[in-house]
């Protein structure tokens, strides 16, 4: 009897042990690190010094601003696109559904680095995009060397990568909306668009919230795209919090400071998620 009681713990033990080593330990140790400073090869306690420095660090504020700008523009575009795609692909009339679903989802399984490098090649001054533009008589666009277009490039790349992922989440949720609702609405004379806004969107609300929170966290940790496409340039115009954490730690050797930035991001994510829950007004 006692054996059977202990047994389940044996099964979860590997997962728990790995979780402790690779998740709990780094969380605690980076929290401690965020209050420390390297002096002559040794870490010494520095109190709130790292956090104070953060407040006066113009690069941090630029990174925060950029991250939010990308977040405010990219996340809504992506969520709306994903929702429209999902309801289109859910339609009874569409043929080859499987093919389209897989096609739109494929970007989500490509490696972050590989796709960033591909975009970088296509966005060169004489890359695919500009060649196409020039063929139709438009001026080439300085995709990666102009502060505005560099941000646009990153938003474009991210939308390509993540729309399919969110679409699949919405597709799954759409399967759960009862046909009765649409039927009843049809009887009352509601058109396609009305049905979308009055049935689909409200029914999807918890899922939209879920997708929005995931995207929020994802955007705040944004790293691969700016690292590979622009390295944060030109002149910090695509510097993001994730990239700044990496640079502070691995390029400038300031791991304490990097941890302080990381913890600030955690707090921001927590606050944003809380607001999203409140705004979405969960009834439960």
């Amino acid at each position, binding site marked *: 009897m006692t054996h059977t009681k202990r047994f389940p713990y*044996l099964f979860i033990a590997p997962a728990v042990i790995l979780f402790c080593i690779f998740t709990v330990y780094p969380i605690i140790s980076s929290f401690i690190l965020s209050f420390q400073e390297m002096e002559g090869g040794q870490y010494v306690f520095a109190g709130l010094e790292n956090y104070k420095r953060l407040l006066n660090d113009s690069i941090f504020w630029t990174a925060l601003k950029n991250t939010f700008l990308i977040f405010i523009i990219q996340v809504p575009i992506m969520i709306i696109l994903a929702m429209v795609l999902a309801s289109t692909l859910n339609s009874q009339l569409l043929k080859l559904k499987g093919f389209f679903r897989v096609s739109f989802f494929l970007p989500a399984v490509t490696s972050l680095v590989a796709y960033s490098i591909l975009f970088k090649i296509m966005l060169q*001054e004489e890359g695919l995009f500009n060649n196409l533009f020039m063929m139709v008589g438009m001026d080439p666009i300085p995709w990666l060397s102009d502060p505005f277009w560099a941000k646009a490039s990153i938003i474009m790349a991210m939308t390509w990568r993540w729309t399919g992922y969110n679409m699949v989440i919405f597709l799954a949720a759409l399967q759960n909306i009862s046909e009765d609702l649409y039927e009843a609405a049809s009887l009352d004379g509601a058109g396609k668009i009305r049905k979308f806004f009055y049935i689909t969107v409200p029914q999807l609300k918890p899922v939209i919230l879920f997708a929005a929170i995931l995207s929020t966290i994802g955007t705040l940790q944004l790293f691969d795209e700016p690292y590979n496409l622009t390295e944060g340039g030109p*002149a*910090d115009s695509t510097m993001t919090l994730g990239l700044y954490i990496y640079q502070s730690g691995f390029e400038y050797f300031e791991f304490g400071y990097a941890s302080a930035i990381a913890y600030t991001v955690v707090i921001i994510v927590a606050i944003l998620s809380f607001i999203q829950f409140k705004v979405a007004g969960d009834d439960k």
Partner: protein
Amino acid sequence: MKKLFGMIIFVAFVLVLGACSSDSSGEGDSGESDSGKEELTAWAWNINVPVLEMAAEKFEEENPDFKLNVVEMGTSDVYSKLTTGLQAGGKGLPDIVLVEDDRFQGYINTFPDAFANLSEMGFDEQKSKFPDYKTELLTKDGAMYGFPFDGGPTGVFYRRDIFNEAGVTPEDIKTWDDFIEAGKTIKDKTGKDMIGLDLNGDDGLYRMMLTQQGTFYFDDEGEVNLASDESKKAMEITKELKDAGIVKNTVGWDPWISAMTEGDVATAPSGAWLYGSITQQGKDTSGKWGVFKLPAFEEGGNRASNLGGSNYVIMSASDQKEKAYDFMEYFSTTNEVQVEAMEGGLFPSLNTVYDNEIFKQEVEFFDNQKIWEMFAGEMENIPAVNYTGDYAVAKDEAVKAQSKIVNGTPIEEALENAVKTLKNRTQ
């Protein structure tokens, strides 16, 4: 039965985990090899690997108990792993690591105990065999911590075919002003750009021009020097190049190289190591190339500078420092090894090697120009500059200032701002 099955899975899982961890811990430390010899490990990248392996084989012939395992990695991977290992107190590190010139001071300042003190081990005797700029770079508090290896004496690589078409002679390009004028002529006559630059992402040209004038991001006392006259002059030339419309925007390494090999741009001021990349990627352009020294800021001024170059260090955490030292001393100071390095595309900084005939030979790829003689002659004139431990942060600010300047911010304002930010960041 179920229980038994569960137990088996659990035990198997634990075993796998155990195997993983013992594997990874063994990787860095010098383990016993099959023959029972103590094996040393080195991290290096790219064309350095075959050179190191070849030298190790030769060394092994006379020292039968020596064995070197060279682990090949990308340059940035070496730094990431090195940083992480040092951060973890010297865990999982090899015995020998390759470190570039501009990165060295950053490591030695952040991790003062990271590298073995070579002066204590007797390397000072060999000091005179290397140019001052290298030995000074590797010195902290009077002791040397690295073995000087390859250098990056600079030159302007140019396409003879484009120069001929435009009727420009490289001998007439003596100053940067001449360079810009020649660029305008080339643009007029051939429609091609003079130079490929990544003005928003890299400041290689600016760094070369600073070194050429004997200064750097920081002055010899370590004070921020971005707003110095030398820095302003370098930025002015950069801006003039851009404003003259003779710069092709090449973002990243590959576009820059292919602009050269495909004949879209006429020149590339760079370190001697560029030889390796253009001969590999532009095989069908043999005979179309030439090199001349960097233009001076005023006629008769210094035309020697440096870009890039690397050094070997021994990790303090290694338990076979003596052995590693013996091998690296052999590697750094043996002409034979350095000639091999040279043939592999790495320009040696060991000055006893320059008498070798390889330095006097005509290079077919460069239309039989004696390019190595030119580079070797430069080595003694390369000014020693102070990279300091804050190199990476300073470079970040310099690139940003450059980006702002070519986009219209006045030079003075951009540089003063960069000084202010940099001082803040390096307090």
